[in-house]
């Protein structure tokens, strides 16, 4: 026996503390959330938690505020994701050629992703300020009418989408640029021989070869856009008139402003199921696509 017990079981000794930590910090809370979603509980010392079965879920599904939050989440997610993917790929193509100052551009591109979201929320609050904000100054400069931006229920979500696009399009671009770097030269040379134009080369070579990369980037953004919290909470806190109240914000409000812990938990269970479900669908799509190319 060359090694002692410690060395023979080393891989478990290495991996188990991390797994144990994650399970305790994550699995326990999830199970606990599921459990309290069946209780009516307001965190007060006088009234103890009361078992109500599926009542919280039923009440939630009957609420228009819940459906409104679900709709806002969907609206925000779908539009932000679509814009970020299209714009991200376009910018990646723009920046992938060689030019002077490329590193500077890439550096600036990195900043929105790492900057503190709450601080950026406040900056955008100033930019969107209707009387002194830069957004309206620009609109006026090009002869358009000023808008209310975050102050108007109809314009609030589009305004937040602009912030999300500003912050996270660079992420898609960086991933796509990494993908572009791995595309082989040969198909383009063959296309040149065939006399294919720029657009034709893009549509029939670049885009198909990039598709798996784009899908990975989109999947990653999808998971995170759904969970957007900091920017929304720091700028509108769900307002005006609940216009920007997504499921994430509503869950927070139910739990930590109304202290309806049971109801909040049932909402979070549904939200959790939604995010996991969509993630699994995306993983399945990716697998299917990989199989197609093999």
């Amino acid at each position, binding site marked *: 026996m060359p090694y002692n017990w410690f060395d023979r079981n080393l891989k478990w000794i290495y991996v188990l503390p991390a797994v144990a930590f994650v399970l305790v910090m994550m699995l326990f809370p999830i199970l606990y959330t599921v459990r309290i979603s069946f209780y009516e509980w307001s965190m007060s010392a006088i009234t103890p938690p009361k078992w109500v079965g599926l009542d919280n879920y039923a009440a939630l599904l009957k609420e228009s505020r819940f459906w409104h939050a679900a709709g806002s989440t969907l609206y925000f997610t779908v539009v932000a994701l679509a814009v970020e993917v299209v714009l991200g790929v376009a910018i990646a193509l723009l920046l992938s050629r060689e030019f002077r100052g490329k590193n500077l551009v890439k550096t600036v591109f990195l900043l*929105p992703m790492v900057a503190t979201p709450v601080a950026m929320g406040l900056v955008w609050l100033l930019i969107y300020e209707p009387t002194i904000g830069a957004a309206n100054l620009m609109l006026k400069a090009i002869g358009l009418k000023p808008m209310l931006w975050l102050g108007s229920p109809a314009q609030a979500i589009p305004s937040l989408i602009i912030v999300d696009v500003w912050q996270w399009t660079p992420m898609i671009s960086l991933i796509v640029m990494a993908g572009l770097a791995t595309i082989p030269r040969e198909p383009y040379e063959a296309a040149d021989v065939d006399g294919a134009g720029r657009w034709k080369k893009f549509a029939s070579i670049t885009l198909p070869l990039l598709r798996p990369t784009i899908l990975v980037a989109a999947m990653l953004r999808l998971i995170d856009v759904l969970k957007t919290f900091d920017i929304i909470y720091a700028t509108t806190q769900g307002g005006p008139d609940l216009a920007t109240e997504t499921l994430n914000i509503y869950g927070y409000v139910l739990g930590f402003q109304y202290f309806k812990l049971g109801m909040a*938990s049932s909402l979070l269970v549904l939200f959790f199921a939604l995010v996991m479900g969509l993630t699994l669908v995306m993983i399945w799509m990716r697998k299917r696509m990989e199989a197609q190319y093999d």
Partner: protein
Amino acid sequence: MTKRNKTARLIMGVLTAAVLLAFAFPFLWMLLASFKTQSQIMSTGQLFAFKPTTHNYASVFEEYDFLGYILNSLVVGLGSTVLALLLGLPAAYAIARHHLHKLGLVILVARIIPGITFLIPWFILFSKIKLVDTYTALILSHMLVGLPFIIWIMISFFEALPKEIEEAGLIDGCTHHQVFMRVILPISGPGVITSSLLSFIFSWNNFMFSIILSGDKTKPLPVAVFNFMSYSEINWGALMAAACVITLPVLVIALLAQRYVVNGLAAGAVKG
């Protein structure tokens, strides 16, 4: 033909400059406003030309004790990063070398699940054991964000190391543990830097966990800056100075370690 190429190049150049400006603009605006007085911000006549004042920064540090909040953020950021490295590095190594990718997936789930799902149970539990408003609660919660990133970045890093290095160490009579400590870790600098920087940045920026689990004694910067906003009328200059103070450290880190951060974000992303 050359003329057409020239025009095309010009259009590309203008587009690139426009993209650059659009993404840099909010930072520029924040920086400018942080040196303006309230009335300069209110009057749209002095957008770029104005007499700068450092009054906003003085008030942020003198009236609102931002040094204390910076210290809180540092303690939590460094604490959660060091502890996540301690758990994450050996775990990533074991997962990479022994192909325990199923276990790796368990850890990755922490990256997918909405953080708010943990928050109610944590809050109840931490209240019961009197940990709300302690560094412990904040460090533990921030570790759950940093750890998956550290593990996933380090798995690909360790997998890329040639196996011969370890075999040489074993032949020299090291145990597996000694190989990891004396051979693998010393050559893993770039990976460790990348993953620690990202873990620290995530902790520094974290708002949702901090707003619930911190209190007067442990309030980190994002929560302080956010609360700062609710003092009656918005003092834009001071608010922008506060935003600069909180953003500056992460921007400096990102600029100094640009390559690492890009690689890390991309690796964490692609593996995600």
